[in-house]
Structure formats: C-alpha cells, structure tokens
C-alpha cells in the first residue's frame, strides 16, 4: 500500500492556488499560467499509473508543472530564433558613460527577492492545508481576495462574529505553522 494516493477530483480544491502562484511568477502571464496548469492536470491524470506514492501529491504535480514551464520556454525561444544582443559602447559621444550604466540600481527589486517572497507565499498556502478546509477558504477570501466581511458572511452563511472567530483561529494556526517552517 503506497504512502500517498492520488485523488484527481480534489486536485483543483487542494492545489490550484498553489500551482497558480508557483506558475505566475515564473511565466508572468495569467493566460499562459492557466494553460500550463491545465496541461499539468491532463498529464498528471494520464501518467497517474506511474505514481508510486513515494512523494506527496503536491510534489508530484509540481514536478510535472516544472517540466511544462521548461517546455514552454523552450518553445518560445525556438520560435524567436537566436536572440540578438547588441552592445553599443564604442559611441564617441557617450564614451565612458557605459560605466555608469553598469552600476546596480539599489532600488531595483532583485529577482531573488521576488522568488523568496513567492516561496513565502507557497509556504503560507502549504500551512493553510493543515487547517480546517472551510476555515482556510474563508481566510483566503478575506485575506487574499480582500473580500468584504459582509459578502463573505452571505457567501458562507455565517455571522460577522463567527467570521472573526474563524479568522482568529486561522491566523493563530498560520502564525504557528510559519514560525516553525519559515521565520
């Protein structure tokens, strides 16, 4: 009996936000990200019989998604042909100015920062997996989508004081989980 089993009917509810946030920083385009995730689900279902249950469902899906992202870049690169890099520093007028251009802009947010923040986001989503499903959904609506308290109350048929109790539990659990796994 394998340690982990696949349950494709739950993939969207459990992992779609995770996969989406993973992809969006890497391809920077919602349409493309959605297509890549569709392909990932399809490929995952097709090769479900090869899943040995050694990795978690999430890890397995991510490994397929990674291949899809790489394939995507291969495809657009070959379509573009060879990229042309033009360096024009021999211009008489601007002699020496290129040095200035080489200085790093300290206000520029680096790719590493972006990546680290994205990883933090993924860690948050992973932590949310361990709390009550409905509470996690309410927390996400409130915190990530920034939905109105009233709208969420109507959506889930709860009172505002229910909502704040749920938010409190979710935040406490999330803070403890991040404390352990991130900070």
């Amino acid at each position, binding site marked *: 009996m394998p340690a982990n089993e696949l349950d494709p009917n739950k993939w969207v509810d459990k992992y779609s936000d995770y996969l989406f946030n993973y992809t969006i920083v890497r391809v920077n385009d919602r349409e493309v990200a959605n297509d890549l995730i*569709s392909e990932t689900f399809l490929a995952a279902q097709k090769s479900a019989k090869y899943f040995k249950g050694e990795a978690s469902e999430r890890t397995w899906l991510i490994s397929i998604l990674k291949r899809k992202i790489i394939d995507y870049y291969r495809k657009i690169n070959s379509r573009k042909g060879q990229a042309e890099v033009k360096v024009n520093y021999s211009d008489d007028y601007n002699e020496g100015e290129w040095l200035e251009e080489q200085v790093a802009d300290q206000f520029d947010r680096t790719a590493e920062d972006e990546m680290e923040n994205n990883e933090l986001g993924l860690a948050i989503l992973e932590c949310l997996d361990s709390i009550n499903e409905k509470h996690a959904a309410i927390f996400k609506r409130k*915190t990530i*989508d920034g939905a109105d308290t009233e709208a969420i109350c109507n959506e889930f048929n709860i009172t505002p004081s229910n909502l704040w109790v749920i938010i409190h539990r979710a935040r406490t659990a999330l803070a403890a989980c991040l404390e352990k796994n991130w900070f």
Partner: protein
Amino acid sequence: MSRMSKLFFIDCSKAAECCNKSQYEEAGTLEKMKLLIHLTFCKACRRFSSKNSKLTQALKKSKLQSCPEEQKQAWREQIKKEFAEDNVR
C-alpha cells in the same frame, strides 16, 4: 466608574478580535483605543499583537493571488471529463 470601566476595559478575547479587525483596517476608533489600553497591561496580548502584525506583513510581502472561480470550475470539468474517458478506454 464601573460604566467607565466597561467602556474602556475589554477582555483578551475581545482584544484579539479588535486586533484581528485592525489587520484588515476594519477596527473602529473606539475599538482601537480599547485595544491600546488593553495592550498596556496585558503582556500575552502584546505578544499576540506583534505576531499578528508580523503575519500581516508576511501576507502582504508574499503577494499571493487566487485564481478565479470560473477557471477552477473549468479545471474541475476537464479533470472529470478526462477521468470518464480514461474509464471507457
């Protein structure tokens, strides 16, 4: 005095609620004031409050997005369809 104290002093669970509301900019002025008064003498809530703002910062920094429900529904249907076709084969 007792009416005054009811107006300004709150217990820890009420303080936590005010603290959570203020993370979403939904605490009123009176609530914020009550929270501040409570924090001056409650160490446990001070700790909670600072953790809570740290969490808010982290959430902001992470720039999480959720994908729209329609897209999720499309994926659900795609998976169901593929599943059905797989069983026919």
